[in-house]
């Protein structure tokens, strides 16, 4: 007998046979087929829970970020600075040089803005040669700067004897227009394009140092809420980050 015939004989005997399976198998099949609905309901519940957890986490993170950035400066890149020295300042020019400047340019601008002790004495002479800047000047400067939607940091006290080096962030307005407008009214002012000035990384740390810590803010808020009428206690933070307690009550001080 050939192998193919052997296979055929077995196939004929086996292939079309029917055997009824036990009823237990069908009940198991029905039981398993009913389960997926429960599973899907469970999955749906789990997905809602996960969504709720995710939403709560996002809300918490958002609130935390908002709290930390609540007093962040809105536009750091558009700082317009004015650096001026009084005679007293020139006397303590060495001290000024040690403190980080708001803006700095690596070459000549830096030299103009931050004088060394030797330059301080020379600028003392040049400051007397130049006309004094009147107190009304910041208004006109601010008016020009408002066209550029920038802010001007002016110090009226220092402007009285200022050598009048003023920097503009003239990115949007043509610098020549600004310069000519300023020179018409105030010829003793030098306009410097701050777009050429590379801001040092010292700007942000200095601002952050002066900004009160979130813990300090929290402590002050709690103190105010405890006794809103008599503020005998306040919290401050120095540049190093140490939290200091100020007692305004004389009894406590003594």
């Amino acid at each position: 007998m050939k192998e193919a015939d052997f296979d055929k004989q077995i196939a004929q005997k086996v292939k079309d046979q029917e055997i009824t399976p036990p009823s237990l198998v069908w009940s198991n099949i029905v039981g398993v087929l009913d389960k997926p609905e429960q599973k899907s309901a469970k999955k749906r519940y789990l997905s809602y829970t996960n969504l709720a957890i995710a939403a709560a986490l996002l809300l918490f993170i958002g609130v935390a970020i908002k709290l930390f950035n609540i007093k962040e400066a809105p536009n750091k890149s558009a700082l317009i600075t004015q650096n001026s020295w009084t005679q007293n300042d020139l006397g303590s020019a060495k001290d000024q040089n040690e403190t980080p400047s708001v803006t700095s340019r690596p070459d000549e601008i830096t030299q103009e803005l931050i004088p060394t002790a030797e330059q301080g004495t020379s600028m003392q002479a040049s400051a007397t040669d130049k006309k004094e800047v009147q107190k009304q000047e910041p208004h006109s400067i601010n008016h020009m700067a408002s066209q550029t939607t920038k802010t001007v940091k002016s110090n009226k006290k220092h402007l009285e004897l200022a050598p009048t080096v003023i920097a503009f962030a003239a990115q949007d307005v043509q610098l020549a227009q600004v310069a000519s407008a300023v020179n018409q009214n105030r010829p003793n002012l030098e306009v410097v394009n701050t777009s050429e000035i590379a801001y040092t990384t010292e700007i942000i740390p200095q601002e952050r140092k002066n900004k009160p810590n979130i813990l300090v803010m929290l402590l002050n808020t709690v103190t105010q809420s405890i006794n809103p009428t008599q503020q005998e206690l306040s919290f401050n933070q120095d540049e190093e980050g140490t939290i200091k307690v100020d007692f305004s009550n004389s009894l406590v001080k003594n």
Partner: protein
Amino acid sequence: MYAVALRYAKDTAEAQDILQNGFIKVFTKTEYYQGKGSLEGWIRRVIVNTAIEHLRKNKMNFLSMDQITYHPGVSCPSLTQLDYKDLLNIIQQLPVGYRTVFNLYAIEGYGHKEIAEMLQINEGSSKSQLSRARIWLQKRIQKMEELEL
């Protein structure tokens, strides 16, 4: 379909598992039936595939050449005296690899290439498993006939 599952299983418990899983697939994957062939043929294919999957999960091992003893002189016995239950009993006693390849080739009608793809083996391995399954079956049937006589 239970008969199909019994041919691929070593016992009734395994066959019932195959049948149960196969019919769950039939009921949950009805969208895969495109209506081109007969429904019975599609269900049969599902049961066969479920059986192969079941055997693969249980780490189906094909016997190596060393484990087989050849009986070249075995003559092909006559199957007329054997009934279905006896023949099914002999098939279930086949080693799992032999049984699967013999079922797929001799009864279901698959080619060696298809079997090799389904079982993830070589074509040559499928052929050798089939020939050894035949020899094994012939020997067993012959023994059974001798006992009956």
